[in-house]
């Protein structure tokens, strides 16, 4: 029975590691469905991580921290929108700039305000057992014995899928990424819809980053996002631009992160660096396996101008 306990712990960690990826990837799915690719997710997550940590540390409330993280990242998302949507600048270049800003700003804020603080730990976000459901063998602890942010991530994906596929708003977002001109002809605001989708995506990236600092590590570490923002980009492609696809892909990547940690802990005879690179190798392998099934929005990355 020992292997069941091991498997259960592994899957529980999988879901825990998947949550920040789910938030970020679902948000980016919305942005990309609206036709805007934001490779600055890594920077946004770092801004979210440091904001959540600083606010939670100062106020004692983790939830206030998460809220602040979402809002702070959203502000940067809107600024990204000003440059790419309103001014029509190249989205890849602007996203790369956003990553640099996020990396520098998060480290700067942390060192400026916490450089001299000695006790930097914050209260961890507690695990909430769902009554009854958590009693189910294996699946119970994996899905129903987690912190509230994990539940939020698991519920977010189906909800986001429903909005995108079954509501007028979702239809408008999808059409603006495929045929912006037609959307404009139908009387909808291309610019407004794109701003909304990008801001929503940035907000979720901020929450994803917040998760890492206040729900996972219980502290901020410089550059702690460690490429998850870029993995989220791959997850959007892997999930074929659908929120539920993003959830499944996040779980897969969460599994590689969890497996990597467990193998390191198990002290097996493989250099730990090879375990550390597992999620990144898995990203490339997954992209190879799923290649050619592109459901990429037609207007992705193309700035919209009325006269064009």
């Amino acid at each position, binding site marked *: 029975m020992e292997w069941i306990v091991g498997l259960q712990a592994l899957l529980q960690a999988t879901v825990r590691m998947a949550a920040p990826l789910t938030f970020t990837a679902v948000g980016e799915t919305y942005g990309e469905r609206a036709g805007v690719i934001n490779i600055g997710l890594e920077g946004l997550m770092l801004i979210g991580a440091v904001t959540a940590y600083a606010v939670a540390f100062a106020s004692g409330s983790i939830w206030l921290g998460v809220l602040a993280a979402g809002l702070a990242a959203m502000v940067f998302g809107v600024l990204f929108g000003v440059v790419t949507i309103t001014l029509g600048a190249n989205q890849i270049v602007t996203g790369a*700039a956003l990553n*640099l800003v996020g990396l*520098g700003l998060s480290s700067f804020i942390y060192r400026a305000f916490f450089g001299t603080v000695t006790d930097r730990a914050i209260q961890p976000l507690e695990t909430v057992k769902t009554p009854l459901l958590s009693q189910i063998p294996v699946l119970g602890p994996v899905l129903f014995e987690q912190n509230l942010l994990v539940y939020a991530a698991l519920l977010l994906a189906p909800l986001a899928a429903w909005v995108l596929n079954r509501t007028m708003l979702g239809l408008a977002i999808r059409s603006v990424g495929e045929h912006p001109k037609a959307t404009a002809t139908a009387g909808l605001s291309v610019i407004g819809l794109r701003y909304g989708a990008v801001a929503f995506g940035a907000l979720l990236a901020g929450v994803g980053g917040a998760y890492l600092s206040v729900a996972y590590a219980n502290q901020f570490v410089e550059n702690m996002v460690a*490429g998850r923002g870029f993995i989220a980009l791959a997850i959007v*492609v892997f999930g074929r631009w659908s929120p539920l696809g993003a959830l499944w892909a996040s779980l897969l990547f969460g599994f590689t992160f969890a497996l990597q940690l467990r193998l390191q802990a198990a002290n097996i005879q493989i*250099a730990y660096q090879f375990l550390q*690179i597992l999620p990144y190798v898995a990203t490339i392998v997954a*992209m190879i396996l799923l290649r*050619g099934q592109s459901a990429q929005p037609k207007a992705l990355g193309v700035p919209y101008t009325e006269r064009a």
Partner: protein
Amino acid sequence: MTTATLSRQTGAALWRNVALPILAILAALLVGALMLTLSGFNVLAAYSALWSGIFGNARNLGEAMMRATPLILIGAGIAIAFRCGIWNIGAEGQFYMGAAAGALIGLSAGDLPVWLSIPAALLFGALCGGLWAAIAGWLKVRLGLNEVVTTIMLNYIAIGIVGYLVTGPMQEASRYNPQTDEIAAGMVLPRLLPGMRVHAGFLLALILPVLAAILLFRTPLGFALRAVGYNPEAALHAGINVNRQYVLAISLSGAAAGIAGAVEVLGVIGRLYENISPGYGFTGIAVSLLAANHPVGTIFSGLLFGALTTGAELMQLTAKIPSAMTFSLQGLIIAFLVSFRAMQGRVWRRG
């Protein structure tokens, strides 16, 4: 072409390539000032510390040239890739591969004459960096994988491999620290000026961008690369092998980053260890963009960012202001620059 139109064109080019970058730098410094004020720092003290960190004495300038060396080499390579329209975000990993290659030769070729061993180290660095980049190029043209994501993943993988090398097969004889032994003394690149750390690699950083510019703007190959970047479909119709240009461009870009890594090992560090790059590969992207992806321009933007890095380090020492600020400034400079260029484009379209 009359003299008047010629001077108007020169004026527009000057405006676009000199005035707008300067405006972007000023705007970024302004936002930086806001950041400092909000964090309770004295802006004047901070920026004067930054200034004297750069121009305070000749030694600082030499330090800036040393910092600029890898940035220019990487930036000039990235300019080639970006001109061809392939988004190489993987210079960091290519730098690490080049550094590992340079260290390998540096550790094993000490008995060879210097005129052979140093070029061998640089060439092997170029080869490893180039091949590492070629993986992403190949994945793009053969399997259709987005190079932005693959190059970034390859960064983490390269850093992991170097981490393995310096704790495993290449670790120092004493097995104490996660690093290699020092490279052969004869292979250390000579210093250019007494009392300064700037080394012969800086000369390479002055030559390589010129060669890259000649390749891009004066050869049929460069024309084909730029044609693909300008409009891949038109290039295809014109009979250009688009896929080959993509792989070639990213490989050349990776080779330049690989040389930068080897030069850093031979010229500055003298050995290989885990975190040899403070984000050179990412700053190199900003260096290329600030230079409007013109290789020769990267000499200037590379020197600027090199100076910014040195200045910020001294600012941290003297004024206790976190040097991480430089990353933000770099990002802001690029964000403002693309914004200004886009605004200018809109004004032109309207006018």
